[in-house]
């Protein structure tokens, strides 16, 4: 498998970049933010994402999706990283869609076509504490009557405030189980959390929430594998978004270096800045390769795909962090203003870094996999 895009994948990339540049450039994010939009995300745009075939990129054709793979999902995620667009793509199109692919025929038929069409938003509720730690989930689902009773608190639930359905990861007797939960069910409390980057998540509190047995996705106590598969695709796509955001911040900065004058010179003529830009370029190339490697590993069903994903998420995260720091610093004072876009990239990268495990989380996985 090659680490560069095929012709078809390049066409998808051009389509996604083109669509977002026209319909959801950074101005779209600013508008949602400045108008204090009630949802913080555009349902209309999500619908258009469905029509373009982006929303259902990993959903099988029989359910109205494009039936493509991780690399294609990464292409869309990278494009979203470049324009900073708030979109249910990560939460619904990547994470929830992947979980639901392991669900019953009824569950698949109920939700996958609607996600693919950009009609439904389904949020995955995994995290509980300040940091991503799926191995420390404390939300409990006790058997009760014909079904289960859920108790616990979730956070960083992407689009949770506008979700048509929630997928909740909870402990059952002998393992982890994934449940489809109606956000309007009794005992579900949802608090929208506007984040630093003006994207949205929610805190979800579950108090004696009753669900039927058919709300279980996959097998009771068998949710871990299903969840891990979804998280890994999500992490690889987050790495792609980080690469996109980091690279876009870098491109904006390069343009500034080529046009801004001080001391009668273009500041890009100064070697102090040239070397930092060249270093950053190298890092971004490495991050891009790592991301492509992870997406490929998932598509190939490789045994070590989880490790490849950790390499990508850790590397792309650290590199994007460097890219946005350099972007603000090289822009100087104007980099600190709300009017210039580079600050928005810095905020978005902070969120993407925290999403689904930061560099430390993934480097820990690397250390364990190598036995030290």
């Amino acid at each position, binding site marked *: 498998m*090659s*680490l*560069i895009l095929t012709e078809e994948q390049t066409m998808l990339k051009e389509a996604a970049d083109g669509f977002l540049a026209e319909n959801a450039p950074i101005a779209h994010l600013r508008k949602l933010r400045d108008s204090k939009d009630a949802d913080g995300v555009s349902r209309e745009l999500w619908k258009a994402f469905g029509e373009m075939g982006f929303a259902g990129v990993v959903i099988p054709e029989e359910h109205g999706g494009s039936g493509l793979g991780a690399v294609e999902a990464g292409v869309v995620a990278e494009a979203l990283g470049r324009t900073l667009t708030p979109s249910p793509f990560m939460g619904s199109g990547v994470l929830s869609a992947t979980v639901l692919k392991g669900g019953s025929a009824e569950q698949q038929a109920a939700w996958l076509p609607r996600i693919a069409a950009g009609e439904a938003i389904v949020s995955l509720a995994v995290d509980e504490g300040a940091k991503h730690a799926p191995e420390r989930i404390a939300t409990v689902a006790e058997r009760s009557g014909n079904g289960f009773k859920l108790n616990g608190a979730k956070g960083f639930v992407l689009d949770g405030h506008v979700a048509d359905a929630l997928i909740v990861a909870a402990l059952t007797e002998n393992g982890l189980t994934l449940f489809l939960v109606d956000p309007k069910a009794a005992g579900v409390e949802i608090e929208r959390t506007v984040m630093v980057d003006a994207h949205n998540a929610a805190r979800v509190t579950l108090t004696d929430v009753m669900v039927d047995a058919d709300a279980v996705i996959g097998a009771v106590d068998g949710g871990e594998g299903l969840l891990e598969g979804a998280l890994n695709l999500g992490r690889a796509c987050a790495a792609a978004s980080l690469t996109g955001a980091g690279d876009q911040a870098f491109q904006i900065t*390069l343009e500034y*270096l*080529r046009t801004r004058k001080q001391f009668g*010179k*273009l500041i*890009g*003529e100064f*070697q102090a800045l*040239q*070397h930092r*830009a*060249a*270093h950053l*370029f*190298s890092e971004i*190339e*490495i*991050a*891009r*390769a*790592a991301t*492509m*490697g992870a997406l490929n590993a998932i598509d190939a069903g490789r045994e070590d795909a989880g*490790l*490849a994903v*950790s*390499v*990508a998420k*850790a*590397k792309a995260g650290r590199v994007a962090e460097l890219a946005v720091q350099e972007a603000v610093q090289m822009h100087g004072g104007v980099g600190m203003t709300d009017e210039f876009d580079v600050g928005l990239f810095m905020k978005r990268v902070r969120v993407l870094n925290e999403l689904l495990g930061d*560099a*430390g989380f*993934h*480097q*820990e996985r*690397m*250390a364990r996999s*190598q*036995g*030290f």
Partner: protein
Amino acid sequence: MTDLETFRAETRAWLEANCPAECRGPGGSEEDAIWGGRNAVFRTPGHKLWMERMGAKGWTAPEWPVEYGGGGLTREEAKVLASELRRIKAQPALNSFGIWMLGPALLQFGSEEQKKRFLPEIVRGEIRWCQGYSEPGAGSDLAGLQTRAEDKGDHWIVNGQKVWTSYADKADWIFCLVRTDAEAPKHLGISFVLFDMATRGVSTKPITLISGKSPFCETFFDDVRVEKENLVGTLNRGWDVAKYLLAHERTMIGAMGEVRSARPLGQVATDSIGADEEGRLDDAMLRARIAELEVDGAAFRLALERVGDQVKAGQAHPAIASMLKYYGSELNKRRHELLMAAGGADALEWESERSNHGGAARDWLRTKANSIEGGTSEIQLNIIAKHLLQLPGA
């Protein structure tokens, strides 16, 4: 089975049958590797056999054309071969500046006679090359080189001095940059020539480095006769050949950052320092630094592979080699700093048998040259700024 799967199965079977047991596992130091040449030295008879068998198949240069002795493999087949070699932890069958540096330049710029004459010998490991580039007054400013070649009709007479010539004292031939036009602008008066190191007037003197080893030499030319048929490419346009070759050299040095040693660094550290009941290294700070390096290393390995894919697809910018060289050499230096930290006081021993005569420390010191040789890190950053980023005035 697909063709590629068939190829993998056949390759695996051939390697199982043909790679001697002593050529599997850790390969030892740079000097212990198989370098070939007229006066080749092999650690064991098995190592000689390994080079000869791989050379006969052309798999020491897997992607070179069969007509010049190469393996004629496609990019995908070459990846399969590399992964099968890794699977059995095979040591390289041949380390060769001929394969890494001169060969690609000859394939691009050489005459048909030169390709037919030199390439098959290179593939089989019968000829060992050294590189005559740097001079005492021409380091980072390589194009300022002064070694001159005086036109004598059918031949040149070469006078001057080279420095940092890797293994000049062990090489059979040299590929060398000489000034053939002293009046022209410095980049436009250089030619790329080949000659035998046994020619009268060539002498070498090893340079002792901080590692205590002498992989580099000073090389002196005193009225050395060089035949005109051994000019590669166009007269006075040797800089084009030199740059093309440098891109390959830089990729090679960068690839040193791609360590596939038998024992992961984290395990070397736990052997040395100890681990807790969960197997975690008993030095949390070092453990974090190693994990970070391993992530960078794995990512860099993919970057090397990706650039290879870009080259095959005709999408690679020639200057991308500078990125690989810069990143890989800095990565390799970091790895050896951590190896020293992992070894602690034990890694400081310089003479004991126990320490393999300071093996770790000498390797650590050797890596400091990685970001100098083949163009310093700063030169690579200049090239990236100019050619890949088009920054003004770069």
